[in-house]
């Protein structure tokens, strides 16, 4: 049993979904989503029992490329995040009546396939292929099932595609150069390379373009808010919940260990960009009138902090970043889903048109409240653990950073609670708010349960990722 079976399962799931017809598609997709989560839990058990679940075979002889998939604790954590969120996202889509449903559900599974591949690949070219492959389904999901004016949406989505594609191509050039130096693109060979400082700067810069656009970091974030707003909610969830974690994961896995000197040299700049994203995102979020856009900017603030955590190059920073990646993945999916639940009933995303929902649906209100509090990192939620570790690691570098970065908690509490107040509280709305359906409730409960469980007991995840992060850190400080 190795990790290829998971890839095959997801790909087969995408095909089966497409050929099952519009009526059955969502159920087939859900089945495959749950099955892939089950399989990844099984793989995790195998990994913990010390069995090898890696694959490596020669793929192309000239140039020398391997089909190499390697699972360590970090990869498995991201894998579980992906396969856990995929069925949740599919489940959340059940309430929508998608046109051409077979295609969108197949694309969701295909996207999940590509992202799982990205998290597992340990050959540069294979990694790049999965990285690019994940772009195509989200492009079509956002383009074809999105909302709002078609022309504007088209512009936003094409901008997103060209931005990310451009960034990735520079990463490709870096890989081609590395291939010339190492003679192979296997991660182990790349780790062994001794690059001069100048080379490292260029390589680091090329990777940085790709990742800073994907994450996104200031000033490469301009595609983000529009795409989050225009994409259908399942697309926004895929983008914010999993896809941007690809960028953060790649920073830890590829960028830092291959070019550590450059990372050390430019640390103040990198931390500055991350923290600037925190402050900028929070301030812009304050002024948003559209619920989805507000969540998009809050997401920008959070990933800025996560990126800053990665670039501290400390154990706490990396571990906090990974925890926060997972926590943010769940929270943001939950928040976007809450926005979608409201949209299904009120047909609006403008905050001013909402209000007075609380008295009509107390259950939904309390779950939404928990999500909001988790998003602002209230202690005992999962987000608190990660955010605390990241801020702690920033303090090691320079105490100014956590002071600036801490604004994410203060400003975040301000704009999130204000949003909650305007959306949910106030005089009872004249429009009837139908109570949440079973499916909707299930999604919310699952997410809230995960956030609380790991908030109180994060040990399983820290135990899982710590050894691999230690190995990466040793590589960085070699």
């Amino acid at each position, binding site marked *: 049993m190795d990790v290829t079976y998971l890839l095959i399962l997801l790909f087969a799931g995408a095909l089966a979904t497409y050929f099952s017809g519009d009526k059955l598609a969502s159920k087939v997709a859900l089945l495959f989503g749950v099955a892939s989560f089950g399989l990844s839990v099984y793989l995790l058990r195998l990994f913990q029992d010390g069995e090898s679940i890696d694959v490596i075979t020669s793929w*192309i002889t000239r140039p020398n490329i391997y089909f190499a998939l390697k699972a360590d604790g970090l990869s498995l954590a991201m894998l579980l995040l992906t396969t856990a969120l995929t069925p949740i996202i599919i489940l959340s889509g059940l309430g929508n009546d998608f046109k051409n449903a077979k295609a969108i559900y197949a694309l969701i599974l295909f996207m999940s396939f590509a992202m799982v591949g990205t998290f597992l690949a340990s050959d540069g070219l294979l990694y790049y292929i999965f990285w690019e*492959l994940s772009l195509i389904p989200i492009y079509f999901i956002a383009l074809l099932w999105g909302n709002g004016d078609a022309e504007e949406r*088209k512009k936003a989505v*094409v901008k997103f595609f*060209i931005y990310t594609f451009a960034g990735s*191509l520079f990463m490709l050039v870096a890989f081609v150069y590395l291939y*010339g130096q190492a003679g192979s693109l296997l991660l182990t060979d790349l780790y062994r390379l001794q690059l001069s400082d100048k080379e490292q700067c260029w390589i680091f810069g090329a990777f940085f373009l790709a990742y800073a656009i994907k994450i996104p970091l200031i000033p490469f974030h301009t595609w983000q808010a529009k795409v989050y707003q225009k994409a259908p909610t399942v697309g926004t969830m895929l983008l914010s919940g999993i896809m941007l974690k690809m960028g953060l994961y790649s920073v830890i896995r590829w960028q830092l260990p291959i070019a550590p000197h450059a990372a050390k040299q430019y640390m103040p700049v990198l931390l500055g960009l991350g923290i600037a994203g925190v402050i900028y995102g929070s301030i812009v979020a304050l002024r948003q009138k559209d619920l989805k856009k507000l969540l998009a900017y809050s997401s920008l603030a959070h990933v800025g902090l996560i990126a800053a955590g990665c670039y501290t190059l400390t154990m706490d920073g990396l571990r906090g970043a990974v925890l926060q990646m997972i926590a943010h993945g769940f929270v943001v999916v939950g928040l976007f889903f809450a926005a979608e639940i409201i949209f299904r009933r009120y047909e609006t995303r403008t905050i001013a048109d909402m209000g007075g929902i609380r008295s009509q649906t107390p259950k939904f209100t309390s779950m939404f409240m928990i999500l909001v509090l988790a998003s602002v990192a209230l202690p005992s939620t999962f987000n608190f653990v990660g955010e605390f570790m990241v801020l702690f690691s920033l303090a090691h570098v320079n105490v100014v950073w956590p002071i600036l970065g801490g604004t994410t908690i203060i400003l975040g509490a301000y704009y999130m609670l204000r949003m909650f107040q305007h959306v949910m509280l106030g005089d009872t709305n004249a429009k009837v708010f139908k109570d949440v359906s079973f499916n909707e409730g299930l999604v919310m409960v699952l997410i809230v349960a995960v956030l609380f469980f790991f908030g109180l007991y994060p040990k399983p995840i820290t135990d899982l990722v710590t050894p691999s992060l230690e190995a990466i850190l040793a590589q960085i400080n070699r």
Partner: protein
Amino acid sequence: MNTLIAIIGLGVLCLLFEILNWRKALVPATILGLLAILGLTASEFGLEASYYHNMIVVNKFASAFSGLFIILTIFLVALSHNFYQNHQTKLSDFIAIKIFLLSGAVAMVSFGNLAMFFLGIEVLSIALYILAASSRLSLKSNEAGMKYFLMGSFASGIILFGICLIYGAMGSFDVIEISELSSSAELPVWFPIGIILVTIGMLFKIAAVPFHFWAPDVYEGAPSLTTATMSTLAKVVAMATLYKLLTVLNADISPAFQMIVVVVSIASMTVGNIMALRQSNVKRMLAFSGISHAGFMLMTLLSASIAAASLLYYAAAYALAGIAAFSVIIYVCRNRDNEDLTNFHGLGKTNPLLAAILTGALLSMAGIPIFSGFFAKLILFNQAIQAGHLILVIAAVVNSIISVGYYFKLILAMYTKEANQERSGTPVLIYAVAVISLLLNIALGLYPSLVLDLLG
């Protein structure tokens, strides 16, 4: 040699079919014949032989490229069935011309003598002149044929002049003798001049900047199937020939010449891509995209001694994507008098399969992974960086980004606009060509070694 003879025999047979009134069996019989010839070529792969005092030299390079040309011709012949539906009486002529064109192409990659090289070029070019003007009553087609003929014969003249100068310098048409002389003795000044003139002529044939002006007009005016032939088969043939010519005539290309190649390559990519952004006619857009791809293929000349495999791979990837794209264009634009972008509106809804194939073909041309276009570019970049041309690679990367702009314009038109016309009928052969060529393209992407190891 057997391949060449068999192809010419098949061409004559095509003409006989008309006389014997077996027109219905023509397309299937030709495809079967070409498949048999492909098998013959494959079975002889690896055998090195020369015929008629080195007039024809068959080696791995020649066989591999001949195989690619035959595959492309099979697709083009298969498309003819539907394309010439309203010109049944001329069907055998058109198909015979395509087969003769193929014979010219094969001669061009297996020449051992400059005379044979020129003969090959002329056979190929004359066949293309006829095909460009083959829509007799259309003014645009006539214009395209005339333009192509005037410009093409001018280029042929330049090539011939170059060959004469080379002969004058070396006293021989035989390429092996010429290459031996070129490395030993002090060279007369006309030898490099001759090489440059021949190169210019070939750059004209592959439509590289600044010899590209004919391409958009001719591509737009010529019947779609001829455009498909020109932009896939003819371009690839000319590129392979230029590569072979430069490698056999003077193996180590001088730095000054390399500089020219770099400049032409960057100019072709950039001009092609930027002009393509502004086109609303799909054939014209693909013409400019072809110019930029010619720029990419020229990169192989910089590491000429080792780049044969990557040229073959790029050529195969580009041509297969081109065939897939053109078969969709032929389907969408039958019965229309233009190939404007508006014809493609809503194809994603009315005909999802063909829309998906065109999307795949365009993604391959843009260089998105898993399609072979990606690996083609990757391997080129790799070789160019190893040869020390980082600037060229960066220019190529920037151009790849630009190219996404216009490829996606077409994809957007198919998926986001509402359909403005009914499309009916499912011509089996067009579907088959589109599906098979794209599948081949993806297969090459999954197993690049299949092609790359042919020319080790």
